[in-house]
Structure formats: structure tokens, C-alpha cells
């Protein structure tokens, strides 16, 4: 019984966290892109546009929800929610942290630790095609249909290199459970270099890490692989006909997929919630220091006479940061927060890479896209896996 | 000792010419063709000089060709004194004829083809004579048959040539059946096909092998020999074979191949000695053929036909000798005959060449002024065949006749008459061709050196060839014919020859036209002889027509159409009928198939239940 309650609590907790992250990830992305393009980005709604996501949500909710007359009603409604559900499902198995003790209850920070967690994630991601494909088909419009076709073809094709790229670190860690996967990556070479699968001897997984990232770009239909929604060819691709909340759910689904795949990459290659360097070498102090510094910077800019508009907001932010920095030193919370910090830190970095790429690279042509996966990515992943297997067999994983 | 090289050289030549000849220059073709034969001739000389006196046969076995139960047929070559003689004749005469052909065929189409076949023939002929067992010998036997077929039909654009080729081939088949059966009998009775084992077991004691069996073998072999060596009743193919180019007639149909039968009988002498009846048959067949074809030769006007019939009759002589028990004499005559008959044919070829293809004696005459070399050479040959001392033919024919006399005087007398006839018709041809006044239109011209030199060589051989004492050389192989030598026999035979010559002179040189009157005088007989006793027609009526008609009516209309086609069509229509029924099930509608599947599985399951699967 207690198990059920605990699970419900955790689920609720994570739901809130993830959803807010989703909303603000959108804001962050717009900011990042803006600064890459030397713009300010959202800055009207609230200080530094901090309330922009809220405004977006309201806008989307209040928009008219129209359904094309010839569309297949059932599927048209079913598709977006299916995809968002699938996008959020992986959160259930992501290991944000180790087993911890709160109020005398020992439990894992993650919702549940499946023996076949990796397979579970792969299964979910393989299912996530349907949302888009069905959306494209059911809205009964040529743009949407083409978008859906492209999306499904592209995602099916990129499944293979992704699966192969996932398989090779598994050869090193020799488990399918995500929690154990993280644990096998603990430890350091020469006291400093972490034994993540990215560095792990005898077969560092650099190649498969890159392959995985590229495949992830395609899986989440992000630039440079966002052909399914190539506006200059297909208006808006598979969600051309969607509006209002259904559109919003596709939107959420995309960002959720981004987060989950980045988290997955973190777990597979970057040692999940493990710190960047050993705790005894003071990695625990890093979050605190980071937030203190951030607070200091914010305070400096807030009190700077040249920036009258930020006189109130930035100091508030600074105080918030300092409070967080303090939280990271509370002994009871420390054990929970620090792993989560590291997890978030790495995932956030990968997310930043996603945005960075979006701001930098142009869009592929469709045949280039397919040729890329079948003629380059897939063979490379295959060879890498073979090499890994050989090395592990020779020098013992 | 590498005996295999001897046949290998011509084979290589054949392969070279056959595969690449089309692209070779004529000079290169000559080099290859003649060179290969020359090489094997030299190799024969080297081998024989190395082997010395050949007291014992020299055997070389290279690989087992067929191994099945008791039957072992190996690719084994053997050289004994008989083989030695044959090898020398084949390669020597063959070489000369090859050289001659260079000139004779110079302007013919299919030059490389001709020489390729000629080389192939040399290969098979040598295989035949050097074979150490019956089967290999049979291979050579068939091979030479094939080559003769190919070469008779060399001018395949001429209908007559192709038909002649077919005739030769088919008639030979009949003989070959006999030979095959003989081989089978030999294997049945001796459990082996190697000459040496067979003859050895005969020499020790014909254990279990009855005289009857040996006689049967001998007669069957004789059938084969009659086929290949153109004896009664299978001689009819040889005259037609003259359709082939003259060198072919000389090499294959005078000197070598047609003597294969003689060689074979001589080779099988041990068998014949155990089967007197068969030997007697050989003698009589030979004698009959000799006389019979000699008479035909009297009235022929085609120069090559004349010589063809004389070949037949000379072969008859050889068989007579063999049959009379004088194997060595037969072989001796084979050798000398190879010389002078080849010479005759080559001379005839030279004449024909000179006259631009004219073969009819009636359109010749007075040629001795135009082509003296040819004339003298042919004269040598004619004298030799007429049995005038001291020319080669005299010695061999003499030996045969003496043996015949000791065998039975009747044979001797017939032989003598035949000799006279031979002399007569040969000289008839000579006189008609070279004396009197020229009756043709073409402008005769002497043949080139390349042709006349072989003629000269052969002329020398036919003059002096009689002094190779072949009988002594062969003595260890064959029991000697009685040496009791009554001189008058010799005088008689020589006299017959001279009478023949004089008669011919009288009829065709001194008093031309007299021949015509005589012919008119006994018209019916003349016509009978002129038409070769209508043998071809008789065969046509008796054998060919029935076979053809029978195949047309019975085999074709009856068996083929009625039975075989009927069966095939019947099966076809039956299949169509059943198909028409089954088609109703094969609707092509997948779902009905599925329905059938369900139904079938239901039946299966019911069967399972019924079989008590539930308990």
C-alpha cells in the first residue's frame, strides 16, 4: 500500500517538475536562439519574458480548436495525446538519482527501475512514430500526409543506428537496468577521469555517443532533420491541420522527447547522476559555488545604475540562487539534490547542444537525410558495435 | 620410349589447325600439317632404331581408360614387328602424301580443314596400328572411319560427294557391328581385351574356348575387315569414295585405311590359326573379291574408278594371302601395294591436276609428251602392279600365289587369271591416258615439284620395295609358308602379267577401235561388267529400299506417329483434362484457399480426435 502511495507522490512530483521544465525549456530555447542570432528574444511578457510560456499556454488554450471536415475524427483526436503520452512515459524509468532515505523511508528517486529499462525506452521511442504518422494521415491533407510519411520513414530509419549505438555501451555495462547502468559507470581513472561509458576502457564509446546524438536529432524531428515539418515545403508538416491544445500537445511532445533522449544519452554515456569528479575532491561544493557565483553576477547587474529595468528582478533572482546554493548544503537534502543537480547539469548541457545545433545548421534535403542514415550512420554504428564487442571479449568488459 | 608421341604429334597438328587454322597463312598450315607428320615419322624411326630387333613386343601402358569389373581397357600402346612395319608404312607414305597435297590442294577452298582432317586421320590410324588391346584398336578403327567420311565428303557442296560419304560410313557401320560383336565374344571367352593376354592364353591352351567360338570370332572379325577393307560383300563404298580429293584416295582408300582390315586379320592370326574354317572363309572372300572387282575394272572409263577397283582386287589378294596362311606374304603385299597404289593414285591426281579436273580416260591420250614425269612414275607403278620382275609387286604377289598354290591349286589358277586381268586393265588405263593422240580440250601442264618429288620417291619405292624382305622380318610372328619353291609357278604368274600387258597394248595402242568391236560382240556381258554387275542396284533393291520403306511406313508412320507421339499427346491431353477439373479448385481466390485450409485442418483434427487423441 505504502508502495502505491509513494509511487503516486513521486509521479506527481515528477509530473510537475517535467511539465514546468517543458514550458520553460521553450523559453530558454527562444532565448538561446535569439542570442545566437544577436537578438534579445522574448522580453516583453514579464521580466526578460519570463512569463512568456504562461502567455503561450493561455493563447493556445483559448484558440479555436478546429477539426478538418474530412478528417478521421477519432484518430485526429487520438494522435496528439498518444504522442505526448508516449513522450512523457520514459520519465517513469529515468534514474535521476540513487536510492535515498527521506523521513526514514528508503526509496529510489526514480519512479521505478525495470530490469529491461533500456528495452523499455527503445520500445517507447519506437512507438512514438504512430503519433506523428496517424496525425499526418488522419488530418486528410496532402501536406500533413507527406509530413507524416516523411516522419515515419525517417524515424524508422533512424531507429536502427540508435539501437546499435545504445547496444554498444550495454556491452560495457552488461545490464539493461538504467540504475545499474549508472552504477557501473562510477569510479575514476587516475582519480580524475570518470569511468563513464564515454571514457570507459577498453572501448570508449565516443563514436556511438555521437551516433546516438545524431539519431536523437532525427527521432525528435529537430533541425537539421526536421523534414516532417519543413515549413518551406510542407507548410507545417504533420501538424498543419492542428491548432490549439492538440497543437500544444505536439509541441510538448517534441520537447519532452528532447528531454528524454538527452537524459537517456546522459545515462548511457555520461554516467547519469554521477558527479564530474570525485566527491572527496570537492565536487559536492560545485553546485553551491555555481549558484553563489550566479547570484553574485545577477546582483551586480541588478544594482548596476545603467540597467534601471532590472533593479527589482535581478536581485530577486540573485536571492533565489543564493537560497538554492544554501539548500545544496543542507545535509538531509544534499544526498537528494546533488545527484539530481548533476543529472540536470549534464542533460541541460545536451539540451543546450540541441538548441545550439538548431541555431547553427541548415536543413538537410530528404534524400540526403536517408542516405546519411543508411549509408553512413548505420554502418558506422555497426562497425563500432563490432569493435566494442571484440575489445570487450579480448580485454574483459 | 614415349610411344605416345607418335600419335600425339598429328593430334596436336589437328588441334592447332582445327582451332586456329582459319586464321593461319597457307605456308604456316603446311608447316604445321607436314611438320607434325614428319616429326612422328622421325620419332618412329628413332623408336625402332632404339628398340632394335624387337624379339619381344614392346608395351607401354599410360593410364586405365575403362575399369569395370573384369574389364580393364587401358590406353596401352604396343610395338612388335608387325606394328613396326605398319607404322613405317603409315607415317612414311602419309608423309609423302601430305607433301604432295600441298601442291594438289593449293587452290582448293577449306585448305586448313583438309589438312586438319588429314592429321586427325594420321592420329587415328597410328592409334589403330599401335593399340595394344581390341578396344583401343576399335577406337582407331572408328576414328579412321570418321576421317574417311569427312574427307570423302570434303567437297560437301557436291551432292554426290556427301552421298558417297554417307554410303562409306553406313556400309562401314555394318562391318563395325561384326567387329564389335567379335570384341564382345573375345571378352566373354578370354576375360580380357589385351592382345598379349588373349594370344598367350591361346598359345598355352585354348582353355575352355571351343573351336566353334574361335570360328565365330574369326568370322565376325572378317565381317569387320570386309567392311573396312572393301571386300565382298561390302566393297561397294570404295569406288564411290573416289569422290574425295585424290590425295585422300591415295592415303586413305589405297595405302593405309583400307588395309586396316588386313592388318587386323594378321594381328589376330593366332585366333585364325585355331579356327581353320574362318581362315578358309578369309581366303575365299579375298579370292572372290580379287577376281570379281578385277573384271569390273576392265570396263571403267573413270581413271580413278579403275584404280579403285584395282585397289579392291589387290586387297582381295592380301586376304587371299592371309587366308592361305601366308600372313607375312599378305602384309608384304600390303606394303608394296601401299607404295605402287599410292603412286598410281597420286599419278592419276597429277594427271587430273594437269587436265584441270578431267577424269574420264576417253578425254585423255598422248599425255606422255605433256607430262613426262608423271608418265614415267605411273609406268613404274603399273609395271609393279602387273607383277613384272624385278618390281616390288612381283615379289609380294608371287609370295601370295605360291602360298595359294600350296593351299589349293584352284585358288592359284584363279589368282593367276586375276593377275592377268589386273595387268590388262591397269595398262589399258595407262595406254588410254598417255598414248595415242590427245582427245581433250584442256591444256595439259606438268605438276609442280612439290607434287612430282613425292611421285619420284614412291616410284623408287615401288621399284625397289620388293627387296625389303618383310616376310623374313615377320618370320618370328607368323609360321613360315612352305618354302618349297617350284619355279614354274613364278613363270606362270609373270606370264599372265605380260599377256595382260600385251593384250592391252594390242587393243588400245596397236589397233584402237578393236576394243569397241569386242565390246559390241559380247554386248550383254560387256554391259553387265560395265554396270558393275548391277551390284549397287541389287543392294538398293534388296537392302536400301526395304529399309527406307520400312522406316517410313512402320517406324515413322507406325511407331513414331502412332505409338510415341500418340503416347505423348495422350499424356498431354490427359493432363489437360485433369487440369480442367482441378482448375475449379484453383480459383485464384486467396480467401477460398484459406477456407480450404481451415477445412483441411478441421479434418485433420477430427482424425486426431477419432484416433483417440482425447484420452
Amino acid at each position, binding site marked *: 500500500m505504502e508502495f502505491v502511495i509513494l509511487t503516486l507522490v513521486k509521479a506527481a512530483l515528477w509530473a510537475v517538475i517535467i511539465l514546468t521544465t517543458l514550458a520553460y525549456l521553450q523559453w530558454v530555447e527562444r532565448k538561446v536562439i535569439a542570442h545566437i542570432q544577436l537578438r534579445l528574444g522574448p522580453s516583453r511578457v514579464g521580466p526578460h519574458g519570463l512569463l512568456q510560456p504562461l502567455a503561450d499556454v493561455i493563447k493556445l488554450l483559448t484558440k479555436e480548436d478546429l477539426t478538418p471536415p474530412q478528417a478521421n475524427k477519432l484518430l485526429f483526436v487520438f494522435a496528439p495525446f498518444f504522442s505526448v503520452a508516449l513522450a512523457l512515459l520514459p520519465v517513469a524509468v529515468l534514474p535521476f538519482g540513487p536510492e535515498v532515505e527521506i523521513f526514514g523511508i528508503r526509496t529510489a528517486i526514480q519512479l521505478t527501475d525495470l530490469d529491461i529499462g533500456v528495452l523499455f525506452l527503445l520500445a517507447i521511442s519506437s512507438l512514438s512514430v504512430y503519433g506523428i504518422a496517424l496525425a499526418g494521415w488522419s488530418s486528410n491533407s496532402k501536406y500533413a500526409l507527406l509530413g507524416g510519411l516523411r516522419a515515419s520513414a525517417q524515424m524508422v530509419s533512424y531507429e536502427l543506428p540508435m539501437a546499435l549505438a545504445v547496444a554498444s555501451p550495454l556491452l560495457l555495462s552488461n545490464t539493461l537496468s538504467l540504475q545499474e547502468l549508472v552504477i557501473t559507470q562510477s569510479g575514476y581513472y587516475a582519480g580524475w577521469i570518470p569511468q563513464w561509458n564515454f571514457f570507459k576502457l577498453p572501448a570508449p564509446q565516443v563514436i556511438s555517443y555521437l551516433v546516438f546524438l545524431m539519431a536523437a536529432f532525427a527521432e525528435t524531428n529537430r533541425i537539421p532533420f526536421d523534414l516532417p515539418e519543413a515549413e518551406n515545403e510542407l507548410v507545417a508538416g504533420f501538424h498543419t491541420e492542428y491548432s490549439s491544445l492538440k497543437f500544444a500537445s505536439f509541441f510538448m511532445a517534441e520537447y519532452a522527447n528532447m528531454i528524454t533522449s538527452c537524459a537517456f544519452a546522459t545515462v548511457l554515456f555520461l554516467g547519469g547522476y554521477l558527479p564530474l569528479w570525485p566527491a572527496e575532491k570537492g565536487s559536492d561544493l560545485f553546485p553551491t559555488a555555481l549558484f553563489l557565483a550566479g547570484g553574485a553576477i545577477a546582483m551586480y547587474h541588478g544594482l548596476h545604475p545603467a540597467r534601471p529595468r532590472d533593479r527589482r528582478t535581478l536581485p530577486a533572482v540573485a536571492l533565489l540562487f543564493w537560497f538554492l546554493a544554501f539548500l545544496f548544503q543542507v545535509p538531509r537534502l544534499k544526498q537528494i539534490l546533488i545527484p539530481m543537480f548533476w543529472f540536470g547539469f549534464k542533460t541541460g548541457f545536451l539540451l543546450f547542444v540541441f538548441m545550439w545545433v538548431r541555431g547553427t545548421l541548415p536543413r538537410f534535403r530528404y534524400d540526403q537525410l536517408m542516405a546519411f542514415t543508411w549509408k553512413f550512420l548505420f554502418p558506422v554504428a555497426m562497425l563500432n558495435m563490432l569493435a566494442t564487442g571484440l575489445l570487450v571479449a579480448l580485454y574483459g568488459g | 620410349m614415349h610411344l605416345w608421341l607418335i600419335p600425339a604429334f598429328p593430334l596436336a597438328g589437328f588441334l592447332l589447325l582445327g582451332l586456329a587454322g582459319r586464321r593461319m597463312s597457307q605456308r604456316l598450315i603446311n608447316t604445321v600439317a607436314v611438320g607434325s607428320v614428319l616429326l612422328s615419322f622421325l620419332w618412329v624411326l628413332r623408336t625402332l632404331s632404339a628398340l632394335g630387333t624387337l624379339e619381344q613386343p614392346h608395351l607401354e601402358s599410360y593410364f586405365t581408360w575403362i575399369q569395370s569389373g573384369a574389364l580393364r581397357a587401358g590406353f596401352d600402346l604396343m610395338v612388335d614387328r608387325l606394328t613396326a612395319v605398319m607404322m613405317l608404312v603409315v607415317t612414311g607414305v602419309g608423309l609423302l602424301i601430305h607433301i604432295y597435297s600441298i601442291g594438289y590442294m593449293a587452290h582448293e577452298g577449306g585448305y586448313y580443314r583438309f589438312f586438319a582432317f588429314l592429321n586427325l586421320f594420321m592420329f587415328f590410324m597410328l592409334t589403330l596400328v599401335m593399340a595394344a588391346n581390341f578396344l583401343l584398336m576399335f577406337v582407331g578403327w572408328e576414328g579412321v572411319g570418321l576421317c574417311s567420311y569427312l574427307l570423302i565428303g570434303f567437297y560437301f557442296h557436291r551432292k554426290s560427294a556427301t552421298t558417297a560419304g554417307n554410303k562409306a560410313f553406313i556400309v562401314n557401320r555394318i562391318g563395325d557391328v561384326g567387329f564389335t560383336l567379335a570384341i564382345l565374344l573375345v571378352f566373354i571367352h578370354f576375360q580380357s581385351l589385351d592382345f598379349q593376354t588373349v594370344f598367350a592364353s591361346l598359345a598355352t591352351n585354348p582353355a575352355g574356348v571351343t573351336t566353334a567360338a574361335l570360328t565365330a570370332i574369326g568370322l565376325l572379325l572378317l565381317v569387320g575387315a570386309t567392311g573396312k577393307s572393301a571386300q565382298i560383300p561390302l566393297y561397294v563404298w570404295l569406288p564411290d569414295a573416289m569422290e574425295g580429293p585424290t590425295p585422300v584416295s591415295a592415303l586413305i582408300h589405297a595405302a593405309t585405311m583400307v588395309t586396316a582390315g588386313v592388318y587386323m586379320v594378321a594381328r589376330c592370326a593366332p585366333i585364325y590359326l585355331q579356327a581353320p574354317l574362318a581362315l578358309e572363309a578369309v581366303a575365299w572372300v579375298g579370292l572372290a573379291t580379287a577376281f570379281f572387282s578385277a573384271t569390273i575394272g576392265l570396263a571403267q572409263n573413270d581413271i580413278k574408278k579403275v584404280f579403285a577397283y584395282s585397289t579392291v582386287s589387290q586387297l582381295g589378294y592380301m586376304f587371299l594371302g592371309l587366308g592361305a596362311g601366308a600372313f607375312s606374304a599378305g602384309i608384304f603385299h600390303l606394303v608394296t601395294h601401299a607404295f605402287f597404289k599410292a603412286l598410281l593414285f597420286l599419278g592419276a591426281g597429277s594427271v587430273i591436276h594437269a587436265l584441270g579436273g578431267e577424269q574420264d580416260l576417253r578425254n585423255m591420250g598422248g599425255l606422255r609428251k605433256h607430262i613426262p614425269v608423271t608418265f614415267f612414275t605411273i609406268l613404274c607403278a603399273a609395271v609393279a602392279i602387273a607383277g613384272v620382275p624385278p618390281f616390288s609387286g612381283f615379289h609380294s604377289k608371287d609370295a601370295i600365289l605360291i602360298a595359294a598354290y600350296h593351299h589349293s591349286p584352284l585358288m592359284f589358277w584363279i589368282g593367276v587369271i586375276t593377275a592377268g586381268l589386273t595387268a590388262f586393265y591397269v595398262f589399258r588405263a595407262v595406254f588410254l591416258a598417255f598414248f595415242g593422240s590427245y582427245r581433250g580440250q584442256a591444256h595439259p601442264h606438268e605438276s609442280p615439284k612439290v607434287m612430282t618429288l613425292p611421285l619420284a620417291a614412291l616410284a623408287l619405292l615401288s621399284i625397289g620395295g620388293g627387296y625389303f624382305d618383310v616376310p623374313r622380318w615377320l618370320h618370328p610372328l607368323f609360321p613360315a609358308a612352305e618354302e618349297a619353291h617350284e619355279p614354274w609357278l613364278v613363270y606362270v604368274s609373270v606370264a599372265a602379267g605380260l599377256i595382260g600387258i600385251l593384250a592391252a597394248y594390242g587393243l588400245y595402242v596397236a589397233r584402237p577401235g578393236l576394243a569397241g568391236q569386242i565390246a559390241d560382240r559380247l554386248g550383254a556381258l560387256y554391259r553387265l561388267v560395265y554396270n558393275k554387275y548391277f551390284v549397287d542396284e541389287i543392294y538398293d533393291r534388296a537392302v536400301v529400299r526395304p529399309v527406307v520403306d520400312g522406316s517410313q511406313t512402320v517406324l515413322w508412320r507406325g511407331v513414331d506417329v502412332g505409338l510415341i507421339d500418340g503416347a505423348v499427346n495422350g499424356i498431354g491431353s490427359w493432363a489437360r483434362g485433369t487440369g480442367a477439373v482441378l482448375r475449379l479448385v*484453383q*480459383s*485464384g*481466390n*486467396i*480467401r477460398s484457399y*484459406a*477456407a480450404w485450409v*481451415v477445412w483441411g485442418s478441421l479434418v485433420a483434427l477430427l482424425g486426431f480426435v477419432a484416433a483417440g487423441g482425447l484420452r
Partner: protein
Amino acid sequence: MHSVPLSWYLILSAVLFGLGVAGFLLRRNIITVFMCIELMLNAVNLSFVAFSYQLKQIDGHLYAFFVMVVAAAEAAVGLAIILTVFKNRATLQIDEVDSMKG
């Protein structure tokens, strides 16, 4: 009555199989027919797994695995064939594709 008899799984599999056959017989769209075949395969897989549970051996799982692999191959080829048929006949009606010659 608080745990499921194994035979129920088998019966479920039989029912699914039967439904698959029924669909095969009933439907006229090639693709649907093909999907019915897949349904039958799934049903069989279920009984494989059930037997494997009963025998406490994983061989059944392996059979199911192989069935899936074969099904994948079959789907690839089958769908390619369907594409070709559609190109040549411009129809997916299975009853209209009953002529034996191409």
C-alpha cells in the same frame, strides 16, 4: 479463484487465432488480410509463452522470438509484394487479384 488457470491463456490464444482466420476469410483488403495473418502469429506466440511458463523452460520464448523474426521478414517481403500488386493492378481488393498470370 484468485489466480488464472494456464488453460485460459491457451483458450485466449485459440480465440485470437480463430478471429485471425475469420478476418482472413472475411476481409477483402489485402493489407487487412495480411494483418490477420500477423494476428494469428501473435496468438500462436501467446500459447508458446504459456507453454514455456508451464514447462518452466524458456524454449517457448525462443520460439516466439523466432516467430517474430520470421514475421518481420515476412512483413517486409509481403508489403513489398502488396506495393507491386498495387502498382500493377491499381487495386487492393483481394478478389480482383485472382488471375494466375501476371
